[in-house]
């Protein structure tokens, strides 16, 4: 059993709840102990870092300080939380004046952070610590014949990635380890527009359309992604893309944990498959 401190992130409890739900039984089946970080707070995300750096630093650092007490690596399934917490960690290590200010703020809540935490993405833990071979050894329902487009999005692999930042392969290897076919396609690490979907929807919808179009062109039956923002954009906004671009995509977008769960024989309910907007039941039926 491998032990980690677990940081779900806000969306894993709301708009990305299929992620929050499905991670737990999958971790259990793979002998991963995810001990949820006690009373974690929002990482601050990109918005806070674009408004006030010291406040954003304090917000991220409260989590890092709490995690430091556990002595474990801090693991998050959210690509945005991962980038924000990892960047704050780097700034706190490399910029002494910034660290001093953030620690002064933390002291007001009786906390301190000395820079000892390693921030990791759950997908990287699955790839590096559990390995595709390790996952493969637990597969009970091989996803034979399922054509999957592994969609990395941006922040899993950029700027601090463990994989090639523009031609990544780790998710493809994990998809293959489940018995499925990882289709080759060009848009696997292109941007979905992230939160611009709320403020500049036309810009984001165009980016989402390019990704869905490319996946469909290469024969994908579904997409799989680790990122909450990417999943929401590609899944919940697919109908908006269809309306705007006169397309008729019907491409389920699964979280990596959901797809692994199906191959490990975990019941659909425990993987929250009914909470995906574009239903994945049709393409997954042969394996459930």
């Amino acid at each position, binding site marked *: 059993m491998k032990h980690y401190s677990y940081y779900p992130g806000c969306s894993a409890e709301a*708009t990305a709840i299929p992620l929050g739900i499905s991670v737990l039984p999958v971790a259990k089946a793979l002998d991963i102990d995810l001990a949820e970080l006690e*009373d974690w707070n929002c990482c*601050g995300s990109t*918005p806070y870092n674009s408004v006030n750096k010291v406040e954003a630093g304090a917000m991220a650092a409260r989590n890092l300080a709490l995690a430091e007490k556990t002595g474990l690596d801090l693991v998050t399934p959210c690509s945005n939380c991962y980038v924000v917490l990892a960047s704050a960690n780097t700034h706190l290590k490399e910029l002494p*004046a910034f660290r001093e200010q953030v620690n002064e703020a933390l002291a007001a809540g009786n906390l301190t952070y000395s820079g000892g935490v390693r921030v990791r993405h759950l997908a990287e833990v699955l790839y590096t610590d559990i390995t595709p071979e390790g996952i493969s050894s637990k597969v009970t329902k091989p996803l034979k014949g399922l054509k999957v487009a592994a969609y990395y999005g941006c922040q899993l692999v950029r*700027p601090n990635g463990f994989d090639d930042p523009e031609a990544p392969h780790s998710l493809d290897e994990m998809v293959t380890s489940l018995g499925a076919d990882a289709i080759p396609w060009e848009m696997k690490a*292109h941007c979905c527009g992230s939160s611009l979907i709320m403020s500049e929807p036309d810009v984001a919808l165009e980016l989402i359309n390019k990704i869905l179009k490319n996946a469909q062109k290469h024969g994908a039956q579904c997409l799989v992604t680790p990122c909450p923002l990417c999943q929401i954009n590609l899944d919940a906004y697919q109908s908006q893309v269809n309306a705007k671009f006169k397309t008729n995509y019907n491409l389920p977008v699964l979280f990596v944990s959901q797809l692994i769960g199906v191959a490990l024989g975990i019941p659909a309910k425990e993987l929250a498959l009914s909470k995906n907007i574009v239903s994945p039941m049709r393409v997954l039926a042969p394996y459930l």
Partner: protein
Amino acid sequence: MAETMVEAPAAEMSFIDEVCSVPGGEAIRSCIQCGICTGSCPTANNWDYPPRRAIAMVRAGLREELLSSNSMWFCASCYTCTVRCPRDIKPADIMHALEVLAVRSGLSTKHSRTPVMYQCFVDSAKGNGRVYELGMMIKLFLKTNPFSALKLAPVGLGLFLHGRMPLKPTRIKGMKDFKAIMDKARKLGGGK
């Protein structure tokens, strides 16, 4: 490279020093204007001044013109520019630094909804210790264009019907200490 400080700058500080003083903005002086950032940017065609030009404007001291533009607010933080930059200046982080300076100077553009969205997010995260997505979106629509919410209503309804849009926010337990930390950080960071 200017010494890294976080405090609001003195009036005589040059624009480029000001950018250098924000965490993430330090390396801007190494830019060679090759343009790979602009060529890599998936949203560059929407920017008043695309990334390469924005960086040149920092060096030319065109502070008000740049900080009041829509440019950096179109950065989706995809970091393609950052991994391709041959001088390792981290253009995406520089765009975030420019956003911080625009907010601090009260120059954020009214022609993009992104600054308002970011502020709604920050208020929500600070208010509960966790972000409450539905509350944040309602506030964004009320503050910008309430009618545009109609277009997105089916998406919101879909999320709600699939159990992905809770009607109540989650609050952290340690609100008192959290608030003390954030109040202190606000004072140290020169925030309002």
